[in-house]
Each structure stands twice: as structure tokens, then as C-alpha cells.
């Protein structure tokens, strides 16, 4: 299973080398990996249906309780199959969609890395590992939305998606840490068995709110729904994959996964049902309001995510079965519809539904496939979407909280969705043919394969609900509950209330579709409160406020004067350390320190050189006297038997003087810039630091807070470190991680100097 998760990352890393050799066939070959993974996960089907779960745990950072643990149960398997299956179709599709695009390689790197992250997310059995994969999906999504990075709309949309989902991710991290602390373990499969204890804990409410915030931002729930339609700036295969079938479902996945641990309480039911219900209606409404084909689909995805959240909130057995069926149905038809939308855009050159018409003659296969999937979206028999919607209505009717309200919302949504399905699948293909920017013809086969396979599955699962299998659906739904679930899917439930409501919805939707143009005009009057004063305006306001704040703070802190930077640093140090010294260690300075004569001589030399460096009017004199200070300090090291330090100090001093001499001739003549007041201030700052360090040392000699570690180092240096030079053993062995960090800093500063000088040279400019 580890290999299955890592394979995507590995292939993604290899793409830059493979791409030049594969060229046009690349997409077809890469698609083999997700296809193979689909088959691999399919072999788990019988076991999972029988109620087994596979586990695998590898220690990662044992000190932090972090392990790469994977857990494959019904819910994970459902997601894994969707991720790999749709992934294979999307990668295949993208090969043709981006044909001849020089950025193809980059695209495949990102989408394969995304696929692996998403797989890791749904298979993780460790909260922290899950969070890491969660953030990886946000980052890959950011890069994919901003794929057209030369387009400012795409950049803005990418940033918006990132800020919203990662902002929620921060809340989620806090929530998961709380959850791990409360449960005493970060292993999810153990946490879900401790529901009682967690729900009764004092931290339950804060941790619930934090987790919900993370899930709602990721799954684009109201009021965070606005980032998802904007994410449609991404290439269409990305929209089909990330922003409809997989990534945005991560939030609902997390809700479902944690339902046995956190669900069933009043806050959970109220928040999830109401937020989900509101999202559902908002999404459906905005879908009908939109005219861009991808936007209609994006908003109907928001609708579906809202429905799923609502079902998790309702939390009954029926709701869980409906959750799984609706999720499966949605991924199949929405993935297909997005791929069809991409095909339409690719062949006609426009995304605007109003600009399309009568395309069924030019694109008969596309028209047929669109109709199949749109029927599933509208929830009409005999497609699988119908079963999902019927189950949803049934669950909502029996909801323990606000059942009537949720039912009303569900029916209104269903009406709107039927109309939206018509807009997507009928409007572009029927009616009067229109001129489009490109002369339309049928899309290439690789681009039709995805919608065809997904459409067929929608139809097959609908006609024969036994194909996904009651046992598998039960196993998936069972993961949401602490008790076993028994699901039975059927196309015909008899003459029930849900069927009646469906019929009503279809009639209403058909009516709405026939008056779509007029309805849109009416809806436009509501645009002001919905868009201009909606949550997106709030986001814009927040971002503008953040920039404004930065604009005001930056000039104060980043003024570009080294002198002031040093003063700020020194004064902060003096204030913080001085405060601690004064409040904790009053009146206990070391007295009676032996001073040898030669020590005094070096000290006087030091002081004289320092004063000279400050007073001199010659740069060379200053450099030399600073050098004298350095060598005097090195002498002190030598006297106190620290030869390593002493050698280092001497060498550094030498090189510093050389470096100073190198730049010395570049500098203009010596001018006294600072006024006497400024100098007095500088002297005060410097004096304060000197006073602080002296006091600190005198205090440190007097106080022994803990047994010095040097004895341990001296004792263990030879047996543990195999070396008699303790300083070196510390540097390369005991504290090697610190040293590694330090040499990285050394190399980085070299790169900094290099690039600064190169930049100045290349621009010929005065200031870098």
C-alpha cells in the first residue's frame, strides 16, 4: 500500500526526464499508473465488502507520535477507487487536451503529485500524516489553478483558493492536535472507537469548531464557497479532477471519517445540517444563475458538497447510505460533465453557454454523453444519480433535526439542479446553431473516453445497483458509523414520498429551464447582495486590509538603514534580557575575580583599539583597529585554553580584513553623515549592550542553574564520539544537526552575496 501511495510521487518526480522522450504519447502512458492502481485497489473489494480492513504502519517520526499509517476500509476504498479511476481518465484526457502545449510536463508533474497526495489523505490512519497530505493537496491545487500563471485572473484565483483552504487548514491543524490530545492517540482507527470520551470532554466544542472550519473551507461550504468557482481558471481536466471529483471532497471525507468520533451531538447536527443545507441551495441557485459552462458545473459541485455535509449532519443510517451513494453518483457524473465541458471549450473556443447552440450535429457523441451524465445530475431514472437523490430525500424526510426545513431546501435544490442540468446538456446542443470562435467538430477519442466510461458507469450502476454492491456500499457507509450499516440500493422503491418529490422537482425544473432566459434576468437583480456584498467581497476587503497594514508597517520596520536595524535588535535584546535580569537576579553579581597582569594588558589593548575604531577618520584605520579587536579576543580564547576557537577567530579576522579591503576601494570618500546627537544615541545603544553583556556574565558566574553539560561531553567524548577533541566531537557528532543548519546558512549567505552583486551588475543600478 505504501508503494501505491508513493508511486504517484515517484512518477511525478520522473516526469521531467520522461517527458522529452514520450512527447505526444505521454498522457496515455502516464495514465497506466492510475489505471494499475485502480486495479490494485479493486482487488481489495471482496475483502472490504466482507468487512475486513487492511492496515499498515511504518514509524516516521516516532518521537512525535507520527507514523505513516494506512488504513483501508470501505470509505477509504471508495475514495481510493474514485481517485485512481477518475485520475486515469483525466490523465488520458489531459494528454489530448494539452496537445502540443510546452507546459505539458509541468502539468503531469503536478497532477500526479496531487493524485498521490489525495490517495495519502484518504488512506492515512494518522491525524498528522493526514494533515500533511491535506496541505499537499492544497499546494498542488494552488499550482494547478495557477497553471496559466501569466494570466492575472488565474493567479488571483489560485491565491484565493490557497488562502481560504490553507487558512482553514491552520484551524484544522489546531483541531486535530486538540483531538489527538483529548483521545490520547493520533491513530484515527483508535480515535473513532473513543467517541463517548471525546464527545464528553471539555475541549469537545472548540475542537469540533476548528475541525469543521478546516473541512468547510476545503469543501467550499457557505460562506467559503466563493473560491471554488474561481478555481475554474484551472485547465478543465484539473477542474474535473480536483475541483469536483476529489480534492473538494476531502472536507466531507474528513467529516465522514470523524463522524463516529465527533458526530451525533447537537452542535454537530445543527451546524452540519444548516451549513450543508444553505450551501446546497446557494450552489444550486448560483448554478442556474451562471452562463459559463464551467461555472454552472462548479456551482452544482458546491450544491453537491453542501448535500454531503448536510447528510453527514443528519447522521442517521439512511443518511450515511445516501452519503455514499450520492458521493459515488456525483463523482461519476460531475467528472464526466467537466470533461465534456472541456471538450466543448476545446472545440468551440468559448466557455459561454449563450454563445453555443445546435452543436449536436457537429458533435453527436458529445451530445449523447452530455445527456447521459446530465440525466444523472438531474436525478432522473435509470441513472445512478437518481438512486442517490432518492436516498437523500428519504434521509432528509426522516431527519431528526429540522427535517421539514431540510426537505424544503432539498426540493428547491432539486428543481434548480434539473434546470441546471438542462442548461448544461440541452442548451449547447439544440436550438439554432450559432457561430463559435472555432468551427466545431467531434473531440478526439482520448477526450471522449473519460465521459464515456463515467457515463456508462452512471447508467450501469443505476440499472443494476448490485454492481457497486450492497455489501460494498454498506461497508463504506459503515465507516461513518460505530454500528454496522445494512444498505440496499434499488432503482424502484415503490410509490413513495421521495418519488413524488422527485417528480415535482423534475416538473419544476423543466418549467424553469424553459424560461431560463427570463429567470436569469430576474436573478440578476439579486446580484448586488449576493456578489458585491457577499463573502467574496469580505475576502477582498480582508486581503486589502492586510496589504494596507503591511504597507504601513513595512516602512517603519524595513527602512533600509543598517544602523537602525542594529539598534532595534540591540534594544530588543537589552529590554528582554535586562527585564529578566532585573526581576529575577537582583544584587548577586560576582565579585573578587582574579585578573592577571597580562590579561589586563590585552583588555586595555582591546579598549584602545575599540575607541580608535570609533574615532578614526580613515577607513583603513578603522578596518585595522577592528582587526586588532578581533586578534585580542582570539588571544583571550587562547589564554583560556580554547585553541579551536582561537584559531577560528584568527582566521575569520584575517578573511574579514581581506573582504573589507576588497570593498574598501569601492566606497566613496569618508564623510561624516551623522550628527553629534545621533552619535550620542548610537553610543548609548552600544553602551547599553556592553553593560548588559557584562552584567549577564557577572551574574552567570554567580549562578549555577544546572550541572554543566561540559562534564558529560568530556566524559563521553572518546567512548561515544571516538574523538579526543571535544569541540570537534560536539560540532560533527553531538550537535551535527545544528552544524548542518549552520553550513546551510553559510552557503545561503554566499548565494545571497553572489546574487546581490550579480543583480547590481546586470542592472548597472545603484541599489540592489
Amino acid at each position, binding site marked *: 500500500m505504501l508503494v501505491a501511495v508513493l508511486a504517484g510521487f515517484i512518477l511525478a518526480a520522473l516526469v521531467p526526464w520522461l517527458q522529452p522522450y514520450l512527447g505526444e504519447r505521454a498522457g496515455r502512458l502516464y495514465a497506466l499508473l492510475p489505471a494499475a492502481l485502480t486495479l490494485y485497489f479493486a482487488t481489495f473489494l471482496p475483502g472490504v465488502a466482507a468487512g475486513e480492513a487492511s492496515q499498515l504502519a511504518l514509524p516516521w517520526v516516532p518521537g512525535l507520535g507520527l507514523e505513516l499509517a494506512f488504513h483501508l476500509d470501505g470509505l477509504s476504498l471508495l475514495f481510493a477507487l474514485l481517485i485512481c479511476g477518475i485520475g486515469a481518465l483525466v490523465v488520458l484526457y489531459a494528454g489530448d487536451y494539452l496537445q502540443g502545449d510546452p507546459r505539458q510536463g509541468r502539468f503531469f508533474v503536478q497532477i500526479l503529485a496531487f493524485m498521490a497526495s489525495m490517495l495519502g489523505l484518504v488512506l492515512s490512519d494518522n491525524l498528522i500524516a493526514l494533515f500533511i497530505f491535506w496541505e499537499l493537496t492544497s499546494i498542488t491545487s494552488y499550482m494547478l489553478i495557477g497553471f496559466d500563471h501569466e494570466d492575472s485572473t488565474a493567479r488571483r484565483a489560485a491565491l484565493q483558493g490557497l488562502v481560504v483552504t490553507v487558512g482553514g487548514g491552520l484551524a484544522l491543524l489546531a483541531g486535530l492536535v486538540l483531538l489527538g490530545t483529548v483521545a490520547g492517540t493520533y491513530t484515527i482507527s483508535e480515535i473513532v472507537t473513543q467517541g463517548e470520551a471525546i464527545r464528553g470532554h471539555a475541549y469537545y466544542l472548540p475542537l469540533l469548531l476548528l475541525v469543521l472550519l478546516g473541512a468547510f473551507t476545503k469543501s467550499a461550504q457557505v460562506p467559503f464557497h466563493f473560491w471554488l468557482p474561481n478555481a475554474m481558471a484551472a485547465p478543465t481536466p484539473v477542474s474535473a479532477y480536483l475541483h469536483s471529483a476529489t480534492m473538494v471532497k476531502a472536507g466531507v471525507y474528513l467529516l465522514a471519517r470523524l463522524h463516529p468520533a465527533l458526530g451525533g451531538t447537537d452542535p454537530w447536527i445543527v451546524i452540519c445540517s444548516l451549513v450543508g443545507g444553505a450551501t446546497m441551495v446557494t450552489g444550486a441557485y448560483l448554478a442556474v444563475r451562471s452562463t459559463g459552462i464551467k461555472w454552472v458545473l462548479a456551482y452544482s459541485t458546491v450544491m453537491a458538497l453542501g448535500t454531503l455535509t448536510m447528510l453527514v449532519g443528519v447522521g442517521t443510517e439512511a443518511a450515511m447510505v445516501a452519503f455514499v451513494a450520492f458521493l459515488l453518483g456525483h463523482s461519476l457524473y460531475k467528472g464526466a460533465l467537466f470533461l465534456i465541458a472541456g471538450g466543448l471549450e476545446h472545440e468551440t473556443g468559448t466557455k459561454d453557454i449563450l454563445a453555443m447552440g445546435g452543436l449536436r450535429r457537429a458533435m453527436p457523441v458529445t451530445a449523447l454523453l452530455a445527456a447521459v451524465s446530465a440525466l444523472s445530475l438531474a436525478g432522473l431514472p435509470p441513472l445512478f444519480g437518481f438512486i442517490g437523490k432518492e436516498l437523500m430525500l428519504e434521509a432528509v424526510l426522516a431527519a431528526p433535526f429540522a427535517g421539514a426545513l431540510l426537505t424544503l431546501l432539498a426540493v428547491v435544490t432539486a428543481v434548480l439542479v434539473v434546470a441546471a442540468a438542462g442548461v448544461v446538456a440541452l442548451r449547447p446542443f439544440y436550438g439554432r446553431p450559432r457561430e463559435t470562435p472555432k468551427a466545431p467538430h467531434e473531440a478526439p477519442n482520448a477526450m471522449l473516453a473519460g465521459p464515456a466510461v463515467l457515463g456508462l458507469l452512471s447508467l450501469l450502476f443505476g440499472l443494476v445497483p448490485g454492481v457497486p454492491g450492497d455489501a460494498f456500499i454498506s461497508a463504506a457507509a459503515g465507516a461513518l458509523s460505530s454500528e454496522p450499516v445494512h444498505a440496499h440500493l434499488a432503482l424502484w422503491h415503490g410509490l413513495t414520498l421521495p418519488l413524488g418529490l422527485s417528480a415535482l422537482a423534475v416538473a419544476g425544473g423543466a418549467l424553469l429551464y424553459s424560461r431560463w432566459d427570463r429567470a436569469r434576468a430576474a436573478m440578476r437583480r439579486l446580484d448586488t447582495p449576493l456578489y458585491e456584498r457577499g463573502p467574496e467581497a469580505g475576502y477582498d476587503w480582508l486581503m486589502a486590509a492586510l496589504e494596507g497594514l503591511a504597507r504601513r508597517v513595512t516602512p517603519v520596520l524595513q527602512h533600509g538603514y543598517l544602523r537602525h536595524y542594529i539598534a532595534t535588535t540591540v534594544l530588543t535584546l537589552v529590554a528582554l534580557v535586562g527585564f529578566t535580569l532585573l526581576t529575577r537576579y537582583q544584587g548577586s553579581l560576582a565579585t573578587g575575580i582574579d585578573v592577571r597582569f597580562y590579561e589586563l594588558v590585552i583588555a586595555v589593548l582591546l579598549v584602545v583599539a575599540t575607541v580608535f575604531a570609533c574615532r578614526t577618520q580613515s577607513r583603513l584605520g578603522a578596518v585595522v583597529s577592528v582587526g586588532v579587536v578581533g586578534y585580542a579576543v582570539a588571544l583571550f580564547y587562547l589564554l583560556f585554553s580554547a585553541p579551536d576557537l582561537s584559531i577560528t577567530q584568527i582566521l575569520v579576522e584575517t578573511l574579514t580584513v581581506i573582504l573589507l579591503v576588497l*570593498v574598501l576601494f569601492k566606497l566613496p570618500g569618508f564623510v561624516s553623515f551623522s550628527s553629534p546627537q545621533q552619535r550620542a544615541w548610537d553610543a548609548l545603544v552600544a553602551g547599553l549592550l556592553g553593560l548588559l553583556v557584562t552584567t549577564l556574565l557577572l551574574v552567570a558566574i554567580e549562578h549555577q542553574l544546572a550541572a554543566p553539560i561540559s562534564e558529560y561531553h568530556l566524559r563521553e567524548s572518546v567512548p561515544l564520539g571516538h574523538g579526543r*577533541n571535544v569541540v570537534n566531537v560536539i560540532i560533527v557528532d553531538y550537535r551535527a544537526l545544528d552544524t548542518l543548519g549552520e553550513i546551510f546558512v553559510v552557503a545561503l549567505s554566499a548565494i545571497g552575496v553572489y546574487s546581490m552583486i550579480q543583480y547590481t551588475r546586470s542592472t548597472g543600478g545603484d541599489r540592489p
Partner: protein
Amino acid sequence: MTRPRSLILQTMARLLLPLQLLFSVFMLLRGHDLPGGGFIAGLVASAGFVLFLFAFGIPATRGLLGVDPRSVAGTGLLLAVASVLPGPLSGQPAFTAQWWEPVIPLVGAVKIGSPIIFDVGVYLTVIGALLTIVVSLAEAEE
């Protein structure tokens, strides 16, 4: 650095550089038991190259180095990171030092360990970084 070059400096630099390099390697290898180590050795070697740079100018120094100093720093970092790996590979935490003390005929017992590799990494990083800075500054001066 187009000033006329000093013959004395050139002669000195040519003589001193090999000695300084030899001395730096000596400092590097003895570092684990006696004063020395990667940092110090790197500084000694850099000082040698800088002296050479002053005497002969940038193109000659670059020619002498044969590689870009930035690559030297990068190699050093890679080595240092690589020296972390023997621990995990033998099932111990990262950074766990691994030691071998083979007895080589005529030489006697030799201590070889991953910390030495780490120290060589430090050595190369210091040389590479310092020379990158000095060469950049010297080139800017031209």
C-alpha cells in the same frame, strides 16, 4: 584587479598555496582528536586561495579551481547531508555516527567514520561559500 602585480606576492602565493592546502587537510584530519576540524581547515584553505587571487587575479584563480566555487559549496552540503544517511540505513536514528577502525598494513589502526565525511562536507562548504563571496566581490570591483 588590473593593477600591476607584485612579483614578491606572486612568488609567495605560488609557494604558499600548496603548503596552506596541505596544512588545511592536516587540520581537517586531525580535527577529531586535536585542535582543528572542518571549519578551521576550510578557512585555512580559503585564505590560501584568496592570497592566490590577490596575486594572480580572478581568471587565474578560477582556472586553478577548475570548478565554480558555488558547486564546491553545493558538493559540501550534499556530502554533509549524505553523511546523515548511514544511521537510518542501519536502522538507527539519523545522525548516529558510524565508525570503522580497520587496521591497514604499514599504517596501523585507522579511524574512519561518518563524522569525518560530515566534516569534509563542512570543509568544502566553507571553502565554497567564502570563495563565492570573495570572487563575487573581486569581480564587482573590476
